[in-house]
């Protein structure tokens, strides 16, 4: 499914990712944890194709070389990024945005476009699961949304777009315990044998709700330790300090 080897990323002469290797198979959920500044968000940005990084190495999704593709081509290939800070797009209705995105991806997959009526039914089903008020659809994308509403909106998009690979960048940040549970349930319901997930997080709390198959520790731009979900618990107890120390 996803294969990353020797990935490096440089911004303004500073090396943020430094030879990162990672393999994720279909059906697996991996978590990447690490201290602030370890390169977690850079990893999600680089995988999704954001401008502004000098990137070397190799990344393939289902054998397709991702690094040569534009962001929208990566999305069409099945990559989805749930943003840490989803941006506002004033004046663009959430429903219109979601349907346009879904149809862009469907066109790419050779599927017929979805009508407004079909879309509404589909969106409402998914929103009910995320305990979202249908009024969200008529608001502008993320405009005036609370932190929790934005995160739920990200998960809603993921559930509509049904990606092959979902990258969740600090999806738990800024959520209270109830919102965290709802978001985590949403993520858990999307776990599937056809799908891989990469959960990037600072805190182990999310991983109590969405149990990962593998946990990796990212320090200084590379993966310095891997293990099963118990690694998350270990980190909670001892913090990252012993790891960052050993990496040098």
């Amino acid at each position, binding site marked *: 499914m996803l294969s990353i080897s020797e990935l490096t990323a440089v911004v303004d002469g500073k090396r943020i990712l430094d030879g990162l290797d990672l393999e994720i198979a279909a059906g697996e959920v991996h978590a990447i944890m690490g201290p602030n500044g370890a390169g977690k968000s850079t990893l999600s940005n680089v995988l999704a194709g954001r*401008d502004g990084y000098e990137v070397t190495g190799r990344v393939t999704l289902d054998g397709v070389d991702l690094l040569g593709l534009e*962001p929208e081509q990566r*999305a069409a290939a099945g990559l989805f990024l749930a943003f840490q800070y989803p*941006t506002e*797009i004033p004046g*663009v209705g959430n429903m219109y945005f979601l349907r346009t995105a879904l149809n862009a991806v469907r066109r790419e997959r050779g599927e017929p476009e979805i009508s407004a009526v079909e879309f509404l039914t589909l969106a409402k089903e998914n929103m009910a699961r995320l305990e979202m008020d249908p009024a969200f659809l008529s608001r502008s994308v993320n405009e005036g949304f609370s932190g929790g509403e934005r995160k739920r909106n990200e998960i809603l998009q993921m559930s509509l*777009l049904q990606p092959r690979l979902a990258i969740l960048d600090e999806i738990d940040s800024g959520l209270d315990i109830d919102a965290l549970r709802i978001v985590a349930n949403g993520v858990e319901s999307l776990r599937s044998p056809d799908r891989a997930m990469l959960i990037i997080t600072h805190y182990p709390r999310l991983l109590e709700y969405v149990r990962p198959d593998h946990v990796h520790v990212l320090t200084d731009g590379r993966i310095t330790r891997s293990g099963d979900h118990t690694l998350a618990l270990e980190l909670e107890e001892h913090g990252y300090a012993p790891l960052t120390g050993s990496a040098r």
Partner: protein
Amino acid sequence: MTDVIDGLVEREYAFGFESDIETERAPKGLNEDVIRLISAKKDEPEWLLEWRLAAYRHFITMVEPDWAKVQHPPIDYQDMYYWAAPKPKGPAPKSLDEVDPEIRATFDKLGISLAEQERLTGVAVDAIIDSVSVATTFKAKLAEVGVIFCSFSEAVREHPDLVRKYLGTVVPPRDNFFAALNSAVFTDGSFCFIPAGVTCPMELSTYFRINAKETGQFERTLIIAEEGASVSYLEGCTAPMRDENQLHAAVVELIALDDSSIKYSTVQNWYPGDAEGRGGIYNFVTKRARAGARAKVSWTQVETGSAITWKYPSVILQGDDSVGEFYSVAVTTNLQQADTGTKMIHIGRNTSSTIVSKGISAGRAQNTYRGQVKMLRSAQGARNHTRCDSLLIGSDCGAHTFPYVEVKNDTASVEHEASTSKISEDQLFYCRQRGLNEEDATSMIVNGFCREVFDELPMEYAVEAQALMRLTLEGAVG
């Protein structure tokens, strides 16, 4: 992002074609003889000729205004034609079927075939090619309720008293340089009259077209809504590609008597010039309305074309409790320059006005909002709210805001908000991550920025405006 900017600079004008209609012209230049010729060609009454000549005599004492934030080489007013008419290839057409096929084909290319308009949309179209109205539809249907919708020339012939009563009452011939020029040489335009208490049963629409080379266009439009009447008027324009700069100085006067309502919507997409700023229309327009007691006048404009736009649709809020609105989207790319805005003159008590201006600037274009809000001593309890938002695409363009506020009544309130922003990398990346290409993403973000204004357009125009915006930005990402 860089691609978007490059693309915008390379944007080509999608409506650039020129139809081959034989044109009859007056000699180049402007003098009393030319004005007499225009008037004679149109079989005008003596009073109108005198009105034109008075305007001309004043015009020659005036100097072109230079306060707008636009730059262009001097305009030689003697090096232009002031009269051109499509030559009839036979007797004048009695119905659409008899209209010159060339002219029909031009409309077809623009996607505004009159037949289609008539058959499908129920919108009456008073089509103008150059200076003579070619066909007017739906007249019979409108006549049933007493609505008059015809070319200005026809109104002069058929309804001279109405024309004489209202012409120049909102924009006097001496109002400004371009209005004086228009008053002297205007050739045609539209006339609408909605009798008291009548709600016009359909949207009235005019498509203007500039067609003959080097023919300045001087349209004159007069809309009168009597007491309690209501009308929605649409004006849309596209023009063929050409190299010579063309002057366009229209005058639009709206008279909204007590308790009436006039909604005037414009989509303006004249040839903006090429990427180096060659060619393109100079659009110097005077549009003004007078609102009686409890009357409401709403201007909505979507300006994407022209090399230079100089345009300030205004409302004189004369009657108590009258309402004025101005909703504007102005897009400039390449070397286009727009200096546009509005004037809200509050005279009556409890008058209120709303101004929403969205300026979008790309390439090396300059986009200026210039607006005046005036609360006279009599404007007890008057209110204004103004919002000006500017969106910059790229780093070589400019956005400017010049609000002029004058308050002489201390119970009046004036609010002004302004913002300037860029399309953010965050927004673009977010959309692209969801599968939209750069072009679709840009278009979606810009349309979102303009949404408040588009929402004010009649339904079919809102769709057209979004398509136009898309087209404007499509060339953009090339």
